[in-house]
């Protein structure tokens, strides 16, 4: 249950049994070809997998590199979140649960969870900070339209971190009939591992697609944005055994790997933004999906091993990257995903990415949700 010294299961005794059941169920399901086939079928028919690999022809020409985009923005509900949620909802059904519990920040994971719940005929209870509820009223409405219950969280800064705490509190009293559907490679074991496995479809597909699209079969660089880090974890999983250099791009104000220190939060030992007294800080990013003060434990492990590196970009670079990608490729990326684009643009300009490099970049989601925010900014 560890990634090096990170990971673990730092949960109250009351949740130990539930976590173990999830782990056992997942191990059994993941080893069961019937489950894998059913999941693969759902990802094909309901999510739109495989997602395309799009050569960013015009931006590549401008940057002097070959940039390939793995298009998670084209999935149902518009981001990679759905891959994981469909997997977990299928697992919950297999376990006999009738309800999904989830936390959400901007609402993407909440919408994905509500979507999967509707598909499987489960009920869904989504915890969301009151401040996020105000800021993301449309996603709240969307969840409710999909039949989910959205519970406002009024503690702390009333954002994602508090919503996660409240969801875990709720789960303590509801383990009998409810399944906790974690949105990223965070939380107690088996979540960081399980969520990575459900997301590795991104990396596995991209690996196969690169083998066709690139003469060298494997890209020189594999780049993905990192909040908790699930799209990056899934992408990296497909390339960790290759020569590709792995780069995770964090938000300047939510850089768990780059600025965090050792800690435990929401059940997992990893790196977190915290003050000198060990109080966990609020993250601040233009991208709500990166607005979490920690990072998945496997990322810290990959960093310690030297297998992946983690970098940051600032909000201004991100906004520029959204516009540049839109103008050159006709793709309006999510602000989260644009972090990865921003780093590639900067790295190509300053020589960090040598001219002629081949780069696979996971475009984790679409920017529709960010249009109002961008309108204010531009």
């Amino acid at each position, binding site marked *: *249950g560890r990634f090096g010294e990170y990971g*673990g*299961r*730092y*949960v*109250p*005794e*009351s949740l*130990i*049994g*539930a976590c173990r059941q999830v782990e056992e169920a997942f191990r059994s399901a993941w080893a069961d070809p019937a489950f894998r086939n059913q999941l693969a079928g759902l990802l094909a028919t309901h999510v739109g997998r495989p997602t395309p690999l799009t050569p960013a022809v015009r931006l590549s020409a401008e940057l002097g590199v070959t940039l390939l985009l793995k298009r998670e923005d084209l999935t149902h509900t518009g981001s990679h979140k759905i891959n994981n949620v469909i997997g977990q909802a299928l697992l919950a059904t297999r376990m006999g649960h009738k309800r999904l519990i989830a936390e959400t920040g901007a609402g993407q994971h909440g919408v994905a969870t509500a979507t999967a719940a509707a598909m499987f005929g489960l009920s869904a209870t989504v915890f969301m900070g009151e401040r996020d509820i105000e800021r993301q009223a449309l996603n709240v409405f969307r969840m409710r339209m999909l039949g989910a219950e959205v519970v406002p969280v009024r*503690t*702390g800064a009333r954002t994602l*971190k*508090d919503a996660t*705490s409240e969801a*875990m*509190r709720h789960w*303590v*009293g509801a*383990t009998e009939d409810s399944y906790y559907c974690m949105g990223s490679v965070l939380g107690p074991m088996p979540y960081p591992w399980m969520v990575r496995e459900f997301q590795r479809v991104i990396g596995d597909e991209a690996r196969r697609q690169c083998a066709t699209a690139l003469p060298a079969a494997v890209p020189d660089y594999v780049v993905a944005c990192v909040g908790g880090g699930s799209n990056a974890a899934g992408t990296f999983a497909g390339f960790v055994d290759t020569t590709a250099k792995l780069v995770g791009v964090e938000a300047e104000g939510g850089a768990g790997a780059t600025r965090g*220190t*050792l*800690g*435990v*939060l*929401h*059940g997992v*030992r990893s790196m*977190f933004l*915290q003050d000198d*007294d*060990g*109080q*966990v800080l609020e993250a601040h990013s233009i991208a709500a999906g990166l607005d979490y003060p920690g990072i998945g434990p496997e990322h810290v492990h990959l960093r310690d091993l030297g297998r992946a590196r983690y970098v940051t970009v600032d909000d201004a670079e991100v906004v520029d990257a959204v516009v540049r990608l839109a103008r050159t490729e006709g793709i309006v990326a999510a602000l989260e995903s644009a972090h990865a684009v921003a780093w590639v643009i900067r790295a190509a300009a300053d020589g960090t990415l040598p001219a002629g490099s081949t780069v696979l970049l996971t475009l984790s989601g679409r920017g529709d949700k960010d249009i109002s925010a961008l309108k204010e900014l531009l």
Partner: protein
Amino acid sequence: MKLPSDHKILMPYLTGGAVADWTDHLRALVDAGADAIEIGLPFSDPTLDGATIQEATHAALTRGATLRGILTRVSEVAGTVPLVASTYANLVVRDRAFCSNLRDAGFDGLIVPDLPLEECAEFENQDLDLVLLASPATTDERLDEIARRSRGFVYAVTVMGTTGERETLAASAADLARRLTTRSDLPVLLGFGISTPAQAAQAAQLADGVVIGAAIMRRVLDGAAPAELGAYLRSIREAMDEG
């Protein structure tokens, strides 16, 4: 730590730094018959706490309470009854000197609700007693292990839920207490949801003692003076001693 074996143990809880005069409250609790005191070291994300202790934690952090400040205040009052710190794993994991600092300030034990059996090994065998928790969902096999590895006492969580006052003592408490007391040589203290003298008396029948947390902090947050808090604890004490 040394807990009395001649009567039922009463361990009230206080959030360190939640109000300015919290050590006055602490003294009042000792005077009112506390056998030990659990002192909460505030953490930004108290995931096993209900609304009251969350509020107390928030109040402490808002007032600028720090670990160092709390330890200083504790060292001034230590020595009368055993003191047990409770906090979350983050504070423990990040600082190698954490346990020794607590011991130096006068703490005798440590409760970390999100440090279960699987993760506690590196914090055992310190000078500080690491108190383990058991819950109604804990299997017998795990209870054996918890009873074996806990130090000072075993904290039996009465409900599948967070800290906080409840109308009645959970039915799950009796079963857990029974399963645990037959396994443990250490005292078994029941906690979570105990707030009235009647509940305390009932709980004390089932085990070796009780922890009173949210009911205390509700009063503290509502502005109860130390004497008032002492009177409340005395009513608990009396109910427990009468059985």
